[in-house]
């Protein structure tokens, strides 16, 4: 796969842009309090949750060359863990969140063991198929709503306290999780582990010759990405107070890839921008016409054909052209 992505963009951008993104996200609730607060908070909470999932996907996709078309499965697993626990009256995050992460990690480990034996297009399709598998399993869970999904009685609590009940508290909790995920992935990418992982993208044979067990590195990365996907799902269930198989349909996986591509693949912070761009665009176009997909579909084609490097890449090349005059 010839995804030539520079390992780390120039230092200045690498610091300024992420800081700006997190500042905007931290201040957004203040701005929202002047407008339709509940609506805007909800929208931005979703942006950040999908941001976590897209970050994870960007990590394996952009840095490892592993294009997963089944990433929504992890989101669904995280969401369903929260939902099933809640259906049995257990809402304490101290129990449910670790379980959600462990289940996602287990699923990632098991499927990763099979998926990572395959390459390029086989990998895309086998991840897609595992995603569909989980989708159908969720649809057949008739005690938990089957195809219709189920509503959560209560948002997660922490040691008995309803810490997420307030929308603004939930917002900042999600922001904190996003920040931690981002910093974690950034640290991983620039660590020795990250260098091996990136090396395996560029030339697996050479990495193997040097003596690295490429498969095991990739599997660990896949498990990390799966865990973060599960985290996003767990938060999503709390934010929407609802879980359904549609969380993990293959269209959702496709949308996550679109987010990563929107922001510019292999940049991490780009994934957050991409998630924001996608969800805001969907919201905006959806406000104009119910047939927004008629506009959005061709837009995707145009972006692929003419805007390589995503929106950030596009913005950067426009900016440089302006500066040169």
């Amino acid at each position, binding site marked *: 796969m010839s995804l030539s992505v520079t390992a780390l963009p120039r230092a200045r951008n690498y610091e300024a842009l992420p800081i700006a993104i997190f500042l905007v996200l931290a201040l957004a609730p203040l701005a929202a309090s002047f407008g339709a607060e509940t609506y805007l908070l909800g929208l931005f909470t979703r942006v950040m949750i999908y941001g976590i999932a897209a970050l994870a996907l960007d990590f394996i996709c952009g840095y490892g060359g592993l294009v997963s078309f089944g990433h929504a499965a992890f989101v669904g697993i995280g969401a369903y863990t929260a939902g099933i626990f809640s259906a049995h009256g257990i809402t304490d995050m101290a129990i449910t969140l670790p379980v959600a992460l462990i289940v996602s990690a287990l699923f990632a480990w098991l499927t990763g063991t099979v998926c990572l034996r395959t390459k390029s297009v086989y990998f895309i399709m086998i991840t897609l198929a595992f995603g569909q598998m989980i989708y159908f399993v969720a649809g057949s869970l008739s005690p938990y709503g089957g195809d219709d999904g189920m509503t959560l009685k209560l948002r997660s609590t922490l040691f008995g306290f309803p810490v997420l009940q307030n929308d603004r508290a939930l917002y900042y909790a999600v922001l904190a999780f996003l920040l931690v995920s981002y910093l974690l992935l950034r640290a991983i990418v620039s660590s020795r582990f990250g260098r091996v992982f990136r090396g395996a993208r560029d030339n697996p044979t050479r990495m193997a010759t040097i003596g690295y067990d490429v498969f095991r590195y990739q599997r660990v990365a896949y498990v990390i990405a799966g865990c973060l996907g599960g985290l996003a799902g767990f938060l999503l269930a709390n934010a929407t107070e609802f879980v359904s198989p549609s969380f993990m349909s293959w269209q959702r996986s496709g949308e996550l890839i679109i987010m990563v591509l929107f922001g510019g693949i292999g940049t991490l912070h780009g994934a957050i921008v991409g998630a924001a761009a996608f969800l805001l665009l969907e919201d905006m176009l959806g406000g104009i016409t119910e047939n927004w997909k008629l506009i959005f*579909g061709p837009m995707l084609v145009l972006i692929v054909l003419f805007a390589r490097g995503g929106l950030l890449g596009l913005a950067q090349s426009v900016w440089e052209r302006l500066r040169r005059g």
Partner: protein
Amino acid sequence: MSFTLLIVQTLNGLQFGVLLFLIAAGLTLVFGVMDFINLAHGVQYMLGAYLAVMFYALTGNFLIALIAALAAALLLGLLLEFTVFRHLYDRDHLEQVIATFGIILFLNQGVKVVWGAAPLSLPIPDMFSGTIVLSPGILYPVWRLMIIGSGLAVALLLYLLVSRTRVGMLVRAGATHARIVSALGVDIRRLFMIVFGFGTMLAAFAGVMIAPILSVEPGMGDSVLILAFVVIVIGGIGSMRGAFIAALLIGLVDTLGRSFAIDILRLVMPPSPARTVGPAIASMLIYVLMALVLYFRPAGLFPAKGR
């Protein structure tokens, strides 16, 4: 689990498998020769069904509707190839996935706008309506047998085309050594267009044939597309023989699994949990099968050589 039911469900599985083959054949050809992942292949199947419904409403004749739908689907497919796909062949897979995903969104919605969101139906031609007695006590719809028969005929035709004709030779060569074929002076663009158009027609044909027994609705291509992917991955991407065997395998496993999972589980567990777990296991079956195949043979059952 009665014997009659077993026969009927085996035939249903065969019919489903043949349908999957018609779709997977185009997909594997396009992928094998052009190294191009076309997610929009499923909507071409949907378009075939919709076009047939439209032309049937205009003419009232199934055969005319079939031919007109195939021609129209071919034209639409070539239009897409010319405006979009052609610019994607030398891009990486990720970009192909996104662009063709955009086309799915557009066409699924477009179909909803043009024909409405409600499911449409196409009547079975009078000649082939009704059932046939296979053996005493076993009735089977004629149209489903027609699907099996025409699918097998197409498979035979494809086999002859690919293995006995000049174009077929180029297709086989292109699947493994596209550059060399191009260097030898073959107009690879034209070959791509022929292959693509042919694949589109096969998908549309599947759509027309299934329309009388399935409701024609927006998004009907999506689930079939995923199954077609499973088929070509199991069969080995680019391999027609692999696609045929894998399609029948998937069709049978899925259909038989769905109809007998509960009964089989009841042998080992009480009825009530069996009714809950059965459907879940049945819907997972083909994916587990795929995982097993890929675990032992990462390039599918019949990997195309040189890939």
